[in-house]
């Protein structure tokens, strides 16, 4: 059944805006989904896809904008209202009770009852009907803990259908699946579509999107960039839409070549819990006074590489050298003391003690060094003075150094973290998404500080999903894909199209089809 263009769109979002402190996640986003189509929403991490879906599903309220479902204006204050309007969502991380059966999971919260008692016979009949008609074969009496990932996903889909959803939102459904299961999922989705359901599908794997979607909406930096029909577009064009077609002029000053290697990563391999490599034989050299940018869609091993360099994760193979010294087996503290700075990608999780005052946050990672400590004793006055200096130098806006870190806005928290790391004058700084989630003013300040530190001879490994940031700051760029370094390029000549296709693996696919 072709998408029906005569009836009004089943979902229409217009001008949706959602602000979080210091960041606009959705900026007047428009999305129009026709009845009975598979509509993909694509974009990089942080482009605002998940926020938009959470708004549509009633998990968070929009600040501005209008939502029409089936032509009628709606305003959801909770997911149960969205469900009542026929919208269901399959989350990326499954929300199932492992110790209950498939049947119990499906009816959980929507149990059919007869005189106050759960009517298992009716529930079982309904479930088997659903399974048969959509080709979603599952044994209702299996325990969820015994199911494979693909089967669990089917339970989630049935759960949504059982509640009468006509519109299904799937948040990165393929990210947890192996290729054969992806095939099966796509088969199920086509089955659903043929029975009149509408599917909204979030992904950033472009080949998959083109294989399944009828229509594609691209988001970038919280804005709708384009809505295209999948028959009119190639992976390369999509990649360009995703990462942007105009890249900013590199504004970093030319680097005086310095042959001294500050950090050397030699065939580093990190294994995941399932023994599959998350970082796969990565070789990197970061030179003194250089910013090496690492581009890549999130989840391609950048985070694990950073943790391995810092010492939070063990290398299963490979070696690390800092200024020529072997540091592979050093504990974190020794690496930090040797001059390894770290700006974490998630400042709340890895960077701050939210319920401690600023001066205690400013010493984290440097608590063994002057002026924060003298031997085994803390130097409280020294630490407070040093913190006041950081607050002044890096323009952290706070009532004082005794304020709890939690009270500060995201941008000010980040300036504190950057200030803490840079004021210790590390030899090597690992900066993971240093400007994520902060406003434009704070972003420019962070960039200036990184440039200044680089001028003074600091080596920087910059991991970012923001191409503007990478191209604007880095002296060299590498791309990580599936745990490997797949490309190296000069930021002054890198085109967005090339970068985008390397990041999404589209270049490899194109070569594959040519052969």
């Amino acid at each position: 059944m072709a998408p029906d263009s005569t009836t009004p769109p089943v979902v229409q979002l217009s001008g949706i805006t959602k602000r979080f402190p210091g960041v606009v996640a959705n900026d007047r986003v428009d999305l129009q989904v026709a009845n009975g189509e598979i509509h993909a929403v694509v974009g990089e991490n942080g482009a605002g896809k998940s926020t938009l879906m959470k708004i549509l599903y009633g998990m968070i309220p929009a600040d501005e904008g209008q939502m029409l479902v089936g032509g009628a204006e709606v305003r959801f204050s909770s997911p149960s209202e969205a469900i009542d309007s026929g919208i269901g969502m399959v989350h990326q991380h499954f929300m199932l009770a492992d110790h209950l059966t498939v049947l119990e999971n499906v009816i959980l919260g929507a149990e059919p009852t007869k005189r106050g008692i759960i009517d298992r016979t009716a529930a079982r009949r309904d479930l088997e009907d659903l399974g048969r008609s959509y080709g979603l074969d599952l044994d209702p009496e299996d325990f969820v803990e015994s199911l494979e990932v693909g089967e669990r996903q089917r339970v989630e889909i049935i759960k949504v259908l059982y509640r009468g959803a006509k519109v299904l939102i799937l948040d990165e459904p393929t990210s947890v699946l192996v290729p054969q299961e992806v095939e099966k999922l796509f088969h199920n989705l086509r089955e659903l579509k043929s029975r009149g359901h509408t599917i909204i599908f979030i992904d950033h794997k472009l080949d998959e999107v083109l294989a399944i979607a009828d229509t594609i909406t691209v988001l970038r930096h919280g804005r709708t960039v384009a809505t295209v029909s999948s028959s009119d577009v190639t992976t390369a064009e999509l990649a360009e839409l995703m990462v942007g077609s105009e890249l900013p002029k590199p504004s970093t000053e030319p680097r005086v070549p310095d042959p001294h290697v500050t950090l050397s990563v030699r065939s580093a391999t990190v294994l995941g819990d399932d023994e599959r490599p998350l970082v796969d034989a990565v070789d990197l050299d970061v030179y003194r006074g250089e910013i090496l940018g690492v581009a890549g869609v999130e989840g391609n091993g950048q985070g694990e590489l950073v943790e391995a360099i810092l010492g939070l994760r063990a290398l299963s193979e490979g070696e690390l050298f800092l200024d020529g010294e072997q540091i592979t087996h050093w504990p974190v503290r020794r690496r930090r003391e040797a001059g390894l700075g770290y700006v974490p990608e998630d400042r709340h999780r890895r960077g701050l003690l939210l319920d401690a005052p600023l001066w205690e946050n400013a010493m984290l990672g440097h608590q063994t060094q002057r002026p924060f400590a003298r031997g085994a004793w803390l130097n409280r006055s020294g630490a407070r003075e040093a913190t006041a200096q950081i607050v002044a130098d890096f323009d952290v806006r706070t009532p004082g150094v005794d304020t709890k870190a939690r009270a500060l806005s995201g941008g000010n928290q980040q300036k504190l973290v950057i200030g803490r790391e840079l004021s210790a004058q590390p030899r090597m700084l690992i900066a993971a998404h240093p400007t994520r989630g902060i406003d434009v003013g704070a972003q420019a300040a962070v960039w200036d500080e990184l440039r200044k530190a680089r001028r003074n001879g600091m080596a920087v490994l910059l991991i970012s999903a923001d191409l503007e940031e990478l191209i604007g700051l880095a002296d060299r760029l590498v791309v990580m894909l599936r745990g490997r370094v797949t490309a190296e390029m000069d930021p002054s000549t890198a085109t967005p199209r090339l970068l985008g296709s390397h990041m999404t693996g589209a270049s490899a696919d194109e070569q594959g089809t040519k052969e």
Partner: protein
Amino acid sequence: MSIRRVSLALAAPVCAFVFSIGLSSLVLLAFGTNPMDAWSEMLSYGTRLETFVETGNRATPLYLAGIAVAIGFRMNLFNIGVEGQYVLAALLAASVGAAVDLPPVLHIGLIIAVAMSVGSAFAGVAGYLKVHRGVHEVISTIMLNAVALAAVGFLLRTWLLDESDTTLNITTPEIAPSGWFPNLNKLVEVFTREISRGRELWGFILVAAVVGVLFHVFLNRTRPGYDLRATGLNPFAAAAGGVDPEATVVRTMLLSGAVAGLIGLPQILGDAHTYDLGFARGLGFTGIAVALVGRNHPGGVAVAALLFGWLDSAAPILDVRGDAPREIVSILQGVVVLSAVVAYEVVNRIRQSAEAREAAVASQQSLESVSRTTT
């Protein structure tokens, strides 16, 4: 501003206490007793000098238990095993103390050292299991409590039993007077009237005070203390900041166990001089409540221990006068714990939003000053 801070800090425990009194009064009314009579009875009995002495004696072990639990809490470790640690430590320390003959100060020092080492080592088992075998400390310490209590029961009836005792008491041999901790009656009587005979304020309360001060200094003034607190506040950020999470777990358990080892000593050194069947059990669990009410803060835990100690000391009068069952005090203590936890959370939220407002104002002001200087 500091006045507001102090009043906010005091608001929570005061509200919790008033609420608990109110709720307990309702319970008393339901029993058909006039709550005012019961409370005034407790108040007049509870303000006698002898009751205060009793309060000090009861508060001392509770304080040590509260601190032992609080050390774990400060890094999000739930040491439920304080109970087993202190009972085992008390038995072994009493036995070693009875077996040796030393000059006074050394004798007491040895007993204290044995108690702390035993408590520490026994808690260390839970730390080791958590770090190397992934066993959650709540599970392991509960199990280890059972092990400790069974071991105590066995040892007391076999190898550590005082064979020379002819009264059929099940007890360890008595510690020689050189290992007795002097009481503080003389010191107290300088300021007050004479304490009635048979009442002694155990000198170990001074040791407890020193432990509290050391705990405060360690936590706030030393780098290992900072590492411990940082791990409690955010283990991931602490690890990225160079704190070894596994070593911190083991170190915290050892420290918590060492303080737990002291809990039984006020009674043994100050009064009983043996470990027998009359030894006070359950202090480790009460310590959890004391730490919760005291907010894991050395001063707060002291207030909580004194409150609990006073309630325990003043309660028996209710039975004597027949106004109410003394168990009403247990209800009161339970409600204090619950309502204190709730009240702290409420105050915490008020404080957080006030701070966030101040930070927003500061951010705004510096923006304005920037724009003033540029224009």
